[in-house]
């Protein structure tokens, strides 16, 4: 397994280029935090990797396979959207095993996997609950279980803590971090919060105007921000 390799992609909407000759590599078992202010191309990058938009140039490789024009449903990428995207007409277990149902996995196997995934995210016993009965943190964990149930080759999380109240944020973040450490796949976590970046990431890439302006280990980026914009972005941790 070679992980994710984004090679010189350009993505735009109409005449506007959002990502220009963008490249990025994320290794298996690596958690990369992608940071940047709003409007700098983070969501566009996620959309390109997921297959929602097709780059005008460049290519996206996942474990050595070119997925640049592969349909979304065939990319096998686990995705946790910002609002979790849970299906309100399905209960917790049905949500978790949705991807397996779409792959025509047998009911018995689906149930087994669903129960296992819910155990992994510490929600055993929640199988028959309705989504509307869950707290924000619980919904996030169901969405994560759902993304992991399909055995993805890559996990993408879009602002995973944005919908969590401050009181439970640390607990949820700790659980997520523990989980990431067990995964053998690349994980990309998008956030605009420097605190979350510091908490989750060994590696961080700072995105501004569609380009990576600095990347590396989070401690190195904090110690030596290369531009005033990066310094301002990491301000809460900047002691200078």
């Amino acid at each position: 397994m070679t992980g994710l390799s984004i090679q010189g992609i350009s993505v735009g909407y109409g005449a506007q280029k959002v990502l220009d000759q963008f490249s990025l590599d994320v290794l298996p078992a690596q958690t990369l935090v992608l940071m940047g202010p709003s409007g700098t191309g983070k969501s566009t990058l996620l959309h390109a990797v997921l297959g929602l938009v097709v780059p005008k140039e460049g290519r996206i490789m996942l474990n050595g396979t070119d997925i640049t024009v592969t349909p979304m449903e065939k990319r096998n990428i686990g995705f946790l959207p910002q609002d979790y995207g849970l299906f309100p007409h399905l209960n917790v277990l049905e949500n978790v095993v949705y991807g397996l149902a779409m792959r025509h996995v047998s009911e018995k196997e689906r149930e087994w996997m669903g129960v296992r995934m819910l155990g992994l995210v510490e929600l055993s016993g929640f199988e028959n609950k309705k989504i509307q009965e869950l707290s924000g943190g619980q919904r996030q964990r169901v969405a994560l279980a759902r993304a992991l149930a399909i055995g993805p080759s890559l996990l993408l999380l879009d602002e995973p803590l944005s919908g969590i109240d401050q009181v439970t944020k640390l607990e949820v973040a700790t659980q997520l971090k523990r989980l990431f450490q067990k995964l053998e796949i690349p994980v990309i976590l998008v956030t605009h919060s420097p605190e979350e970046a510091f908490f989750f990431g060994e590696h961080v890439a700072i995105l501004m105007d569609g380009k990576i302006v600095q990347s590396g280990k989070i401690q190195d980026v904090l110690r030596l921000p290369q531009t005033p914009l990066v310094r301002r972005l990491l301000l809460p941790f900047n002691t200078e």
Partner: protein
Amino acid sequence: MLGKWDSGKAILIIYGLAACTAVFAVFTILYQYVAAWSSWQDVVSAFSNERILVALGLSVTSSFATAFLALVFGIPLAYVFATRSFPARNLIETLVVDVPQTFPPIAEGMILLLMLGPASPFHVNLAFTFSALVIAKFFISAPFVISYVGRRFREIRKSGIDFTARSLGASPFQVLVTIYLPLSFREIAAGTALCWARAMGELGGTLIFAGVIPGKTETIPTYISVSSAMTASALAATILATSASTLALVSFKRITSTAERGFK
């Protein structure tokens, strides 16, 4: 200027206007029963008039056929409008959904007669048949299904859960069947009920294209149009037509108002 208005009096005016509108609509619907009361014996015996009962049967069956076709063709069209971009999409949507609802029914009948009648350039002749009834009703009432369902499909699209479903491995068809349709049950039911009710009341297009042939193409509205307005039989037919539609719409509203909503 607004500050000088007595807000108590202003809201009373608003309530008064609302009440006038509601009273006018409800009174108009109920007046048929008031009018029937004065000759209730003749009206009651008219309910067993064979010609009226056959016309009612044709109205109901042709309207159900219309509603069925509206579902079969309307839902895919609503899905395309909500999820696809293509040239002239807005124009086509306006022509398919909005224009038929304001199209003069008589004109619709004329066009269908020219297109699919005895002088059809396509070498078909469907005029004065049950199919003509259904086609005329479909043109004017299918937009209710397309419009209601399309609006809900657009909400679902905007929420992004369809993309989440695709990221989990669902094909576009699987997303339609497992996400769009279950989450649109209320709109599908409401659109279908309105389509059926509108089809029950359709007159102009069916008059011209299907004609008024007792036992074959005569529906309740066309029966009323050829009867004298003041006869007990016309009144009985009116009561049958409007009562069926009212009952269907009220029942659907009760059923669908209890459905759960939302994506959060």
